[in-house]
């Protein structure tokens, strides 16, 4: 029973972080029909900026929740700028060309960002501070759930809610939905598509940056390569849920998080990473559109 609970908790934690990353894939795909393979790197950069900011800001005397919130703000702002720039450099010039060119550009961008961080920061694993303050009321159950995990769940839930409100009830959200359904008609209604696309990259990158910060707090170490595997898995989660669907991305991420966690616990941790891809293959055979996607995968 204890094992089961442990696995449930670690599954939920990983699933939450996959969800934060998967949303960026699915939103960008919904708007421009493009798989942004550099998205995992934005998450990795988010983690590095969080690390740098936490060192600098704790030197400056910040601590506790104040430190955590400032670090989060720094990671979000910088990563959003990276995401914005990646779109302008790697994708915008290729808009209207074949589907293959932006894909190659995305992979190139991903490799470039990995090398860039490797050279500028470090090729090794770096220790990440535990930024989430201890919550006293968790002390009696601390062997089951710690404050970092609880914080990851709550932060993710809060962000999902905020994103849902943004998409459902704001003018930007309305224009994003309109662009994803019919870009030309959105233009004929007065929408500046470039601005909507940029906003989508900025929002997706901000979410990934939060994911990067949280994974740092959870795993307590990061390196330049963490974006690759996490990116692949979050992408898998987005496809599992039905790429382009926002609730689908969250559902896919949670399913993946639990599946990995239980595979590691009940079979062997050697199979943890393989589970994602086995699950992907099985679901795509059974439901080509993903769990919450339309029956057809091809976006018009």
């Amino acid at each position: 029973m204890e094992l089961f609970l442990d696995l449930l908790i670690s599954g939920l934690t990983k699933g939450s972080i996959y969800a934060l990353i998967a949303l960026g894939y699915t939103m960008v795909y919904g708007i421009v029909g493009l798989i942004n393979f550099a998205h995992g790197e934005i998450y990795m950069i988010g983690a590095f900026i969080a690390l740098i900011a936490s060192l600098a800001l704790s030197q400056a005397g910040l601590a506790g929740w104040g430190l955590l919130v400032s670090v989060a703000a720094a990671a979000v702002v910088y990563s959003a700028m990276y995401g914005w720039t990646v779109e302008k450099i790697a994708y915008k010039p290729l808009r209207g060309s074949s589907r293959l060119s932006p894909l190659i550009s995305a992979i190139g961008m991903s490799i470039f960002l990995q090398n860039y961080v490797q050279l500028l920061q470090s090729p090794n694993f770096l220790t990440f501070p535990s930024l989430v303050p201890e919550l006293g009321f968790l002390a009696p159950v601390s062997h089951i759930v710690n404050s970092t995990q609880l914080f990851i769940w709550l932060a993710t839930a809060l962000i999902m809610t905020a994103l849902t409100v943004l998409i459902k009830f704001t003018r930007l959200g309305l224009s994003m939905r309109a662009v994803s359904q019919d870009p030309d008609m959105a233009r004929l209604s007065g929408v500046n598509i470039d601005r909507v696309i940029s906003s989508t990259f900025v929002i997706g990158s901000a979410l990934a940056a939060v994911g990067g910060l949280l994974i740092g707090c959870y795993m307590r170490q990061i390196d330049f390569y963490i974006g690759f595997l996490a990116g692949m898995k979050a992408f898998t989660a987005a496809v599992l849920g039905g790429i382009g669907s926002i609730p689908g991305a969250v559902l896919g991420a949670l399913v993946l998080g639990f599946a990995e966690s239980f595979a590691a616990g009940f079979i062997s941790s050697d199979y943890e990473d393989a589970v994602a891809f086995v699950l992907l293959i099985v679901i795509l055979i059974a439901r080509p559109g993903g769990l919450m996607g339309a029956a057809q995968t091809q976006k018009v």
Partner: protein
Amino acid sequence: MLKLEGLHTFYGNIEALKGLDLTVEEGEIIALLGANGAGKTTTLNCISGLIPPRRGRVFFDGEDITGHSPESLVARGLIEVPEGRRIFPALTVMENLKMGAYLRRDQPEISRDLDYVFNLFPILRARAGQSGGTLSGGEQQMLAISRALMGRPRMLLLDEPSLGLAPLIIRNIFDIIRQINMERGTTVLLVEQNANLALKVADRAYILTTGLITLSGSAEVLMADEGIRKAYLGG
């Protein structure tokens, strides 16, 4: 109000417009008629900015707007209701209407325009919370026109509003086009294959044959001329 001068438009190597000239005066309803593939939709998309012409000029209010983006032209009050209605299927009727007013900030006036379109098409009020994709063809056409009206157009470009609709609904929609033109002074450029219908509401008409205007004149004259009817208007 609108002037097209020598428009040439290409799809790859196919020349869809071959030097098209056309003018629309303020307050007019102009019909642009022609067979399938004549280039009617291309002409409207050239005006609205979706497909910029390779050569030639588009003037709106005396200003050269060639190559301007569709969104900047919407802001000027030049609004297209494209072929096939293009309702956002997963947005509700109300959200589709909000998209029509996307560039506006004058909330009280937006509410008044909302009342106006709901009075024109009461069925839309009943369908307000329903997603656009679930509407019937006629309701979608009503919504498409209403969405454009929510942008306070000074000039409307309508691409085959009668396509695929029952005669009764077509009559209703054409009555309302005339009503909008009279009540709000909205200028209309109306693309139609159904020439008899279009000529009944239009002041003047142009006939487009494979990328060139081959005939133009007042609607009454074109209607009355037996030879023209036989040659261009299918009887």
